[in-house]
């Protein structure tokens, strides 16, 4: 194989030739110095987290850095994103040195890329940490890879195949044997129906919806690392219909003192404190949203139903970026009602479901599902 040093030098020369004036070529001395940094292999957990923060553009003030994830998906996205996702990049650079990544990051070659990767202020160490974080994706993978793109392409292809074979079947030009045509017709129409049906079912659903928030708030940091109870901020979940988006003063309970994050610095927190000082609310983007004709009560599920938050919202503790876990379809609700046990020792149920309760105490039934106590009545949610 190539001698790594030779390759590096060649690349360097090439980059000198090709570079636009925008960024300065690295000097050999930089290279030399960087080499030691780039050759690191072991990283502490702390550093990996730092890498993650860097990747999500959380480590520096917003005007100084860019959120890599904006262009390079770390998870399935329903938008048409032609940029390589994090997995693709990490696979590409897995066995390459951090310097290669740095070269692309700081001195990109393509025109479009140069526009985006403009004026990054990342230290060598930062680049290494980003790479260290990204290497993780090779193992973890990405949840789903742009299914819409493939689906759309597949749909177009099957439509073309369908049209050609149908035309051919009628006019008979290419294939001698019409059975082959019929087979093509069947396969392509099944594929088309499948994709369209899947699309129609997903229409209006927002599983995995994870919009950009005005403040880069991490549930991972708050609920995971700092182990804040969900009910601390979403205090009305136990008693009211809505769980509530915490008001500014609740944020300030802690952030009155905590003015800078260990990894995120002051920028994001200052957005919250600044908004509070200016008497303006933070305009979060809502993720979990039910249609207006669905009446969902958190109190019913959290207090009466004794369901853990994670059952619906997923493992929020691990989510830096919050995303919608279930698709919130009616089928999803019903399936849960069908399988969720009711706490029959609640006096309410004892009183009004006495028949069932007696069966329960006598051991005739071992459990009663929510569907039996009204979980399938339309009017319980729609009125």
């Amino acid at each position, binding site marked *: 194989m190539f001698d790594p040093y030779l390759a590096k030098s060649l690349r360097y020369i090439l980059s000198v030739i090709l570079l636009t004036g925008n960024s300065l070529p690295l000097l050999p001395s930089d290279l030399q110095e960087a080499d030691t940094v780039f050759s690191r292999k072991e990283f502490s957990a702390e550093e990996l987290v730092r890498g993650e923060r860097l990747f999500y553009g959380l480590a520096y003030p917003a005007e100084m850095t860019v959120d890599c994830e904006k262009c390079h998906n770390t998870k399935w996205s329903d938008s048409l994103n032609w940029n390589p996702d994090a997995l693709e990049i990490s696979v590409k650079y897995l066995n390459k040195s951090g310097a290669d990544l740095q070269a692309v990051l700081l001195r990109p070659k393509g025109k479009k890329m140069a526009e985006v990767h403009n004026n990054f202020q990342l230290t060598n160490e930062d680049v290494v940490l980003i790479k260290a974080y990204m290497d993780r994706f090779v193992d973890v993978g990405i949840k789903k890879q742009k299914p819409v793109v493939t689906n759309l392409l597949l749909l177009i292809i099957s439509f073309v195949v369908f049209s050609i074979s149908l035309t051919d*079947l*009628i*006019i*008979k030009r290419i294939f001698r044997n*019409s059975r082959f045509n019929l087979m093509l017709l069947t396969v392509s129409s099944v594929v088309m129906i499948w994709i369209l049906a899947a699309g129609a079912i997903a229409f209006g659903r927002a599983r995995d919806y994870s919009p950009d928030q005005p403040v880069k708030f991490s549930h991972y940091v708050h609920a995971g690392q700092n182990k804040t109870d969900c009910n601390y901020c979403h205090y009305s979940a136990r008693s009211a219909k809505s769980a509530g988006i915490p008001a500014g003063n609740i944020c300030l309970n802690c952030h009155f003192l905590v003015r800078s994050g260990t990894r995120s610095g002051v920028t994001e927190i200052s957005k919250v404190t600044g908004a509070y000082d200016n008497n303006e609310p933070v305009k979060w983007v809502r993720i979990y949203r039910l249609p207006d004709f669905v009446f969902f009560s958190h109190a019913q599920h959290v207090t009466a139903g004794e369901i853990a938050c994670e059952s619906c919202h997923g493992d929020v503790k691990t989510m830096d970026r919050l995303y919608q876990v279930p698709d919130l379809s009616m089928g999803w609700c*019903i399936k849960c009602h069908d399988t969720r046990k009711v706490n029959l020792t609640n006096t309410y149920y004892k009183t009004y479901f006495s028949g069932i309760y007696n069966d329960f105490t006598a051991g005739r039934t071992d459990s009663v599902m929510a569907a039996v106590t009204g979980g*399938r009545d339309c009017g319980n949610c729609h009125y």
Partner: protein
Amino acid sequence: MDNKDYISVYFDDEDPMLQALRRLKENNLTIIDVLTPFPVHGIDKLLSVKRTRIPVGGFIFGALGGILAFWFMTWVFTVSYPLIIGGKPFFALPSFVPITFEMTVLFAGLSMAAGMFLRSKLKPDIRFKPADERITDNMFVIVIGSNANTTRESIRTVLSGISIIEIR
């Protein structure tokens, strides 16, 4: 023309055609097909065409459709999502009758039509060329398999006395 392996005999009326057919059979000639502008009665027997099994297929598919429809409705109302409707029981048998019937008819009808198309290899094909454009108008054609012994001349002899328009 000579190297064709069949001979077509043209008539302009069904009666001479039937007469010819009978005579050809008596002479043990291979009759490949008879092409007519409308269904001529008696021809099936002469050609010993077996009665088609399309109705049997129709029956089977019809029964299948009916059973499917009935099963589906029962499943929906008793298992999938039972709803209390008008105080009726979930298994509302009389309500299932109309759709069961309709689906039986639909499946039977479509399967029979499909059977006919498949068995007769009827399909849309714009490159199709009819044997003779007069067949759908007023010509009756008997197609006879030809070999060394069966030539146009020999057939003309066999069919002497019957009014023939043409032998090709």
